[in-house]
């Protein structure tokens, strides 16, 4: 469907129209986990963007070399390689951020967004388009994480990038930086996005970007395992 898109279209679609978090509902784990501070959100977003661009480029270059039957493991290994790289870079240059992102830095490997873009886009398109697609999706993800992080940091700890905000910092609503607050904030933000976009809210989490979608479809005949299947088709 994106065959005839302009290059700038490839870049911008990920930021708003196909925002990975708010629209296609991918990569929820880091979105909820690391966004207790706006700074962490941006750090995580940029790290993911880096991995996304690099893996999209490499996978796009290798798309003719990788046999179809082993493509998913191959993609995962390529992605894991770049994740290891960014782990090293971050530990060396930003040790503080490295400590606060913790295990979720390693878990970028299994972030559905990256594998999803590899499967859906990079393995079918040219290098430049794949790089732009990765950059756009990454920036959209960063934007979403920044938004989540800002809301949770301002309400939950009364600060913004570590700066105290008047009366809020005296009695912050701690619940917002706790796990429950993460679910709540994301739910409300998605509702607001739905309201602004005036679109019909998705009935369920969609499958189209899910890396396992092809397996799902195969299995769907046996059993409806992927609940978003019908929603994705409709």
């Amino acid at each position, binding site marked *: 469907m994106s065959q005839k898109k302009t290059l700038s279209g490839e870049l911008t679609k990920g930021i708003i129209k196909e925002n990975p978090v708010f629209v296609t509902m991918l990569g929820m784990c880091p979105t909820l986990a690391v966004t207790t501070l706006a700074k962490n959100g941006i750090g995580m977003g940029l790290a993911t963007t880096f991995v996304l661009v690099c893996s999209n480029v490499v996978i796009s270059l290798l798309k003719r070399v990788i046999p179809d039957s082993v493509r998913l493991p191959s993609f995962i290994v390529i992605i894991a390689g770049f994740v290891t790289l960014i782990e090293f870079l971050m530990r060396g240059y930003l040790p503080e951020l490295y400590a606060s992102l913790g*295990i979720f830095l390693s878990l970028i*490997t299994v972030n559905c967004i990256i594998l999803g873009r590899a499967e859906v886009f990079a393995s079918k398109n040219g290098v430049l388009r794949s790089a732009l697609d990765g950059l756009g999706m990454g920036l959209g993800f960063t934007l979403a994480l920044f938004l989540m992080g800002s809301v949770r940091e301002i309400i939950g700890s009364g600060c913004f990038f570590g700066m105290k905000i008047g009366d809020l910092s005296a009695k912050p609503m701690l619940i917002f930086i706790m796990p429950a607050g993460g*679910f709540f904030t994301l739910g409300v933000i998605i509702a607001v996005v739905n309201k602004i976009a005036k679109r019909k809210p*998705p009935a369920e989490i969609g499958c189209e970007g899910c890396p396992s979608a092809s397996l799902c479809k195969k*299995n769907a005949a046996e059993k409806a395992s992927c609940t978003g299947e019908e929603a994705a088709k409709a």
Partner: protein
Amino acid sequence: MKELVMILIGASLINNVVLSQFMGICAFLGTSKQLKSSVGMGLAVVFVMFFASLVTYPVYILLGRIDAQYLKTVAFILVIALFVQLAEMAIKRFIPPLYKSLGVYLPLITTNCAVLGAAITNVDKKYTLAQSLVNSLGTGLGFTLALVLFAGVRIRLETSDIPETFKGVPATLVAAAIVSLSFMGFAGIV
């Protein structure tokens, strides 16, 4: 022994993998719509997590021998992908009834970050083999518990009157927040 029990309770209830660690959210939201699929997914995760930690433990020791622990992410994800593939084939061949109930969920588990997360947690906390196994078992059981409980909540959610903009995913997430809130009550047990 006491320590193992504490790890089990900690991993399954206090630091519940879904509701306080935020791992495996995609699977959590995707398969908790029906009680049946949530039980199937949960048990498949318990199975894979347990055996994956059994396999990743010697792999990490091997990596240590050649001084390459930094390759753990790459090595673990490969081992997990391989294990899932093998397990799927083996179950299909030898235990067809089990394949019928768990099989469809197995391929989805490779990208479930809870499995890789548990394997990395085992290594980061320097657990022994027994502790790793108990931790993985607890994490998997916690995942199943969260899934089954939440499936019950979502059945009620379907029949309730929700504002138009909150229908679907937003309402599900807000409900998850409340379930997560209840799990905060476990804090401080151990």
